[in-house]
């Protein structure tokens, strides 16, 4: 008797489970379909089309013969190297400031994330007007306060204009990475520091033996991710200098668009494809890293 009464609910339950397996496969496919559709239409087809357009060998010859392209490749590498490292050193240092246990430091943090919270266009254009060598606020103030008649050509001197773009890029993206490193620092157990200071470790030793080892992985992952995104930063260059003066300060992300707007689509596509050997290894590395982290 017990056997039959036991068997019925178990059978019902296993029915429910096997019914569920079929139901699950069906609904899984239906629910994934919208994204798969978007992916096919908006990513797979465009990329395949782009690769097909990029099969023209002459455009690569023309590309490498273009002095602006060569200059742009160098610019991109310098931009990446300086912007990412500088940004992360500052972010690492500032994250140490922001974890201080003070109410007013938290208010400073709220203000500090403003560049991240407001859109790029008005703020970068504000930089552009502010740095205007003739009537921008910076040079006018240099004149009023220090009597400097001819202030620096922030946007007209090629080197300074390039540096200004890097500065704007850092201004915009620093808050985000600082927040990431703050999160990382909060995850470090506080008693490690207490124990260390009891043992007489100074601030530098505490950083070297506690903070850095705990943050290193996060720091490297973040740097990598930031490199990829910095490579794609169109706004900081385009909106501030337009790649100028004289097309000397393009990076790969603005150069492709410049080619396209000059009705030179083939060169635009080619300039993207030659950037792929640089981008894809980083993307591959990050996908592995992020999907492992998600498990």
């Amino acid at each position, binding site marked *: 008797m017990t056997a039959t009464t036991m068997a019925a609910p178990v059978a019902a339950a296993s029915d*429910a*489970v096997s019914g569920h397996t079929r139901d699950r496969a*069906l*609904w*899984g496919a239906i*629910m*994934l379909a*919208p*994204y798969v559709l*978007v*992916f096919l239409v*908006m*990513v797979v087809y465009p990329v395949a089309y782009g690769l097909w*357009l990029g099969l023209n060998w002459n455009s690569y010859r023309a590309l490498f013969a273009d002095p602006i392209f060569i200059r742009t490749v160098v610019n991109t590498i310098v931009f990446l190297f300086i912007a990412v490292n500088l940004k992360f050193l500052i972010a690492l240092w*500032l994250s140490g400031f922001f974890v*201080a246990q003070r109410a007013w*430091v938290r208010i*400073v943090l*709220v*203000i*500090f*994330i*403003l*560049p991240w919270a*407001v*859109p790029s*266009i*008005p*703020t970068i*254009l*504000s*930089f552009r*007007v*502010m740095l205007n060598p003739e*009537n921008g*606020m910076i040079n006018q103030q240099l004149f009023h306060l220090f009597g400097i008649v001819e202030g620096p050509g922030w946007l007209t001197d090629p080197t300074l204009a390039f540096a200004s773009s890097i500065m704007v890029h850092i201004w915009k993206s620093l808050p985000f990475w600082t927040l990431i490193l703050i999160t*990382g620092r909060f995850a470090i157990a506080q008693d490690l520091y207490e124990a260390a200071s009891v043992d007489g470790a100074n601030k530098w030793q505490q950083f070297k033996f506690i903070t850095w080892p705990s943050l290193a992985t*996060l720091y490297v*992952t*973040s740097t990598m*991710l930031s490199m*990829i995104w910095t490579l*794609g930063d*169109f*706004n900081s260059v*385009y909106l501030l200098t*337009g790649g100028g003066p004289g097309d000397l300060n393009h990076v790969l*992300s*603005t150069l*492709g*668009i410049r080619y*396209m707007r000059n009705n030179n*689509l083939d060169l*635009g596509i080619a300039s993207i494809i030659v950037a792929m050997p640089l*981008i894809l290894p*980083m*993307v591959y590395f*990050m*996908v592995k890293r992020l*999907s492992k982290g998600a498990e």
Partner: protein
Amino acid sequence: MKKALDEGKLILIAIPVLLWTLLPIYHLFVLSISSQEAMLAGTLWPAKPTLQNFQIVFQQQHYYLTNFWRQMFNSFFIAITTGLLTLFIATFAAFAISRLKVRGGRTIMNLALATYLIPAAFLAIPMYKAMGSYGLLNTQAALILAMVALASPYAIWVLKQASDKLPKELDEAAIMDGATSLQLFRLVYLPLMKPSMVVIGIYALLLAWNEYLYAFLLLSNEKAVPLAVGLGLFLSADDAPWNLLMAAGLLYAIPPAVIYYGFRKNMVGGLTAGAVKS
């Protein structure tokens, strides 16, 4: 004594940090309340602050601002549609991958992540060409689709991670009770996922609101473009009325800033936790 010294050091860091952060925003604000002459004088504060720029913007009394309200509406429309569509697509996809363990879900997730990681500026030209062959160029649908395609991968990833954290036992118990996948979605998953969904909806909305490159590539009609592109038009003249641009720019920056600060706790936690997992 040591305490005061520490406080002093912190303040010495805080001052340059605040100056650096606020200078361009302060400059934006000062120009927006400056007359044309005051603007060219480059003073730290205009002699006679004026709200006239805002009046001109509101009444669209300048060549560059003819379509200001129209473009503001476009920005709202494109951002909200992108937010809703992304939310719809990503919520379903994350449920299928994380709870239903659909076949191929992992592969799709990795492909989506790769799309998220390739800089959008490098996908712009191929997407522009594709839109041309779909016959969608110069339609807002093109921009919305592009923004959904760019926002979905990260949205799916964050929602999948949030969903993975929900206990498995919830599903098992519901299945034993004979719940179908749809009931599971509606009764177990949706209610628990709401906080993450808010973050993701806002993320996609702001991504679309702030986008400049795709908007100016895919749309050209001044009546169809969002405000970001409308503001970019000022770049076409060397002696542009920057004070008007800044007034319009300030109005454009307010909605996202309000959203960011309104949802600050969720946004900062949700987006930074998702962005980098070590």
